[in-house]
Structures are given as structure tokens and as C-alpha cells.
């Protein structure tokens, strides 16, 4: 099935929760409401026509200019050989997205990664804690406004170098 057909199928089942097919230069995607993404995903995984068995990638992207954090789901179906991209936009100040860890086990760790690096709260996640950074790390480094703390447990994060000369950006 192509993205258009999948979108029509989803719209028939969920109505306004599912947006129209949007297209960029390369990819096309469907935008979904962050509070209902789990139901949409469950249908896509279970329905015989779509049968997306695998969550290939789950990424978070910070868009401060639009005031939201976007979570991007790349799904693939081994049975039918088709792919689909879903996007949800969560409010940047208190980003909350329903977890998909009940649909695909792979979502468990991928969501923990997005929680760790972008601070998105995945509602209903069984084990939402930092995965790559230490538990007592402050802030979410992949947010565009992240400022690194000058030290971590007394270890400086600033490297002083006598060789560093601040040159003007353009001559």
C-alpha cells in the first residue's frame, strides 16, 4: 500500500486524529495526534493490509522556531515491503507522547533515548529513565538551546588551550 492509501484507511478509522499526507522534497509522511499515536500504531501493526512488523527508527527533533519537538517514526513491513513515516508534534515546554512500547518492543529503548537526549515524556512507558547519559545529568543535549554545564562532578567540561586563538569568522 502507498502512503495515500494507508492515510485513507487511517482517516476512516480515526478521523481528525490523522492528518493528510504531507510531502517534503524526498519523503512523505502522516502527522498524528501525540495522544492517540499508540492506537494508530497498534492498528498499523495488527491490520492485515498494513502489517508493519518493525519500528525501524524513532528520532526526536527539536524545532524551537515552531515551539514543538517532533518525534519521527519510520515503520517497515516485511510482509508487504512498504514503508511509512509518522510524525507527532509535542509541545516544547511539556512534551508528552503516548508510548509505543506496547506495540513494538523496540520502542522501549528508542523512546528512552529520545527522553534522555530531548526530554520527551513518553506517557505509559514501563521504564522511562536515561539510557546514554548518567542518571544525574542536567538538561537534554540535543535541544537546540542546550548549554553545557561548566563542570560535571568537579570535572571541567571546558578545555583550556594556549594554542586556541579566536579568529574572526570571516576575514
Amino acid at each position: 500500500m502507498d502512503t495515500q492509501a494507508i492515510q485513507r484507511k487511517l482517516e476512516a478509522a480515526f478521523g481528525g486524529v490523522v492528518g493528510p499526507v504531507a510531502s517534503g522534497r524526498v519523503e512523505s509522511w502522516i502527522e498524528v495526534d501525540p495522544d492517540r499515536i499508540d492506537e494508530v500504531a497498534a492498528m498499523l501493526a495488527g491490520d492485515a493490509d498494513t502489517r508493519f512488523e518493525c519500528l525501524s527508527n524513532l528520532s526526536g527533533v527539536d524545532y524551537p522556531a515552531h515551539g514543538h519537538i517532533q518525534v519521527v517514526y519510520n515503520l517497515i513491513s516485511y510482509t508487504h515491503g512498504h514503508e511509512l513515516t509518522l510524525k507527532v508534534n509535542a509541545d516544547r515546554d511539556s512534551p508528552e507522547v503516548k508510548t509505543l512500547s506496547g506495540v513494538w518492543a523496540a520502542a522501549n529503548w528508542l523512546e528512552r533515548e529520545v527522553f534522555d537526549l530531548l526530554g520527551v515524556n513518553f506517557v505509559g512507558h514501563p521504564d522511562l529513565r536515561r539510557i546514554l547519559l548518567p542518571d544525574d545529568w542536567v538538561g537534554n543535549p540535543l535541544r537546540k538551546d542546550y548549554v553545557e554545564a561548566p563542570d560535571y562532578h568537579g570535572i571541567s567540561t571546558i578545555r583550556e588551550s594556549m594554542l586556541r586563538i579566536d579568529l574572526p569568522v570571516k576575514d
Partner: protein
Amino acid sequence: MSVEIEFEQGGLATEEMTLNMGPQHPSTHGVLRFIVKADGEVMRKATPDVGYLHRSIEKIAEKVGWHGFMPYTDRVDYVAAMACNQGWAMCAETLGGIEVPRRGEYCRIIAAELSRICSHLLAIGATGMDIGAVTPFTHALREREMINDLIEELCGARLTYNYMRIGGVAWDLPPGFRKKVARYLDHLEPCIHEINDLLSYGKIYTERLGGVAVVSPAMAMSYGLVGPNLRASGLKHDLRKDRPYSVYGDFEFDVPVGHGEMGGVGDCWDRYMMRIWEIFESVKILRQAVDKIPEGPVIAKVARTFKPPAGDVHVRVEAARGDMSWYCVSDGSEYPYRVHVRTGSFAAMSIIEELSKGLMIADLVAVIATFDIVAPEVDR
């Protein structure tokens, strides 16, 4: 009361132990840690604790620009760096609408397949060593060494290659390279049979790996296992065959799958053997590639300040540890806006917590080794 009498009366209680394994442990293939809850020798659960090798590669990408990120991709999976190079190059090329010259694509495939054999040889040797067979490790590394020499001739580096560029590859094949590859392949095949005789079909080895930690197809797909780990569970999915990228469509090769010779489909032995079988397939591809490589340029013209138009792209390449899934966003500037890569080891690592239930502690080593987990690839 003596212990014997207490035991006979059923009064001797056992209790759950919590063991720490790692971060520095010889069989953890890098720096990773498990917190093992065990009742005697049987694990209740082994919880992986990752992140010791997090080098914030995705954050670095946002600072160094499109061309500048290429050497960093080597460090995502430094055991098979070519595929990471290729993934990144394909992201930039798809966004920028650049077409790679055909000779460039062939150079990429020759490099990537050599790198895959290199990685699989390490996996094979290291699995043996983790189980307790030290000698085959030296045999495997002896063969790997020659690939390192070949790749050194190609690009000057032996581990972190930095060979590919956006638009093609950095250097053409050196004189006589095709002959050397063909000679090496003739030499390699008997060596793999030797490893099979020495290790793969040995009684102790098959007993140790057969039927251990069976991953069902449904579980493999749900956890997003990819590459050899997925195919070991009997699922015939290889990106090079299903959606041929680059020039993989030009070659004839098979996709081996696990069929449970030594126990269950998707056990440790199947996962181990996938690497052996895949080396033979890579040999087939390489033979055809060095034979068919066309003349011409190896790199397209790409601006030094490369600014792909705004947009996002999802690119998948079949790396040594399976389908490496890249998501990349451009905002039209000379720096990538966001790069995310989901690697094969990340998926394999996440399955261990569930898979470890009820296994022996000693089997955890076999599980890590046969999933071919490379810790830096988990942490990036």
C-alpha cells in the same frame, strides 16, 4: 543442626543474588555492563547498562558540517566502518540530489564488502574465544589482517577508514588492487572451511551454542533485530536483496537464513553460523564486483560548502550488524540540523533483558558474542 540435616528437612533456603558484570570485562566487546539477578547459576534477569561509550556523535554532526562528519561516522561502528560511511554519504546525496558515478558505486561496494568480511571474521573469532576456544581467534585475525592491508592500500587507514565522500569515494582503486582482491578471495575460502572444521562443527562448541537463547521470528521483529541476527531466526530479509541500493542489483548472491541445525531456529549457533555463511556471499559479490567494475570517475562534483536544500530523509544500509537506519534533517544550511542513527547493536542489546530470563550465567557471554554486539555502536 548440620547443613545436611537442614537440607534433608527442606529448610535450606536459597536466595536471589545480584551480580555485577562489567563495565570492564573481557567478554563484553567494549565497555558495557550487566546487572545480573541470579538464583544460583540461573539468571532471573540480566539488565544491560549502556552509555559508557557515548561520544555524542549525533550532537557533533550538528557542529561539523556535512563533509566534516564523515570521519565521525567511522566511529559509530569502528569494526565495520565502511557501511557507516556509506549511510552518511547516501543521506547527503539523497538530500542534495547527487548522483554517484558508477565506478564510485563499485568502489564503495568493494570496500563495504571487504569491511563486512573483516567484521564477520572478528565476530567469528571472538565468539570462539568467549566460549573458551582461543586458537581459532588467532586464525580469524590472521585472515582479517590481510583485509586490513588491502584496505590500507585503498585509503591509508586500517580501522577508521574515512574512505567515502559525499558524491563518491576519496580515491580510485590502486594499481593491481583487483588482482590482489581476487587472490585474497581464493585464499580466504579454504580458511573459512578450516575454521568450520576447527570450531563451528566441534562437539563442545555445538553443545555450548545449540538451542541456547532461541529468538522466535515474532520476537526478533518486535525488538527490531536486523541483519544476521534477524536472518538467524529464519526471516529472509536482506536490504541488499529486498531494496537494492547502490549497485547491489547487479550482483548475484543468496541470502542465507538460520534453519536450526543444532537445536532451535534462531539459537546462538545459528547466529554464529550466519557470519560464516555471509562471508561466502560477500566473496561472491566481491568476485563479481572486481570483475565488472566499469571505467570512469569515482566521485561526482560536489561544492566544498555543501548546502543541501531543506528536507528530511530516511536512509537504510545493510551494515555488518544489519540494517542501519539513518534519519537526517537539513535546514538548508552547511550544517545538518539533526542526524539520528539506529544501529543493529542497539536493537540486539535491548533484547538481552528479556532473552536472559532462565539462561545460565555462562550463557550470557555466548549471547553477547553471537549477537555480535559492538558497544560503541550501541552508545554512539
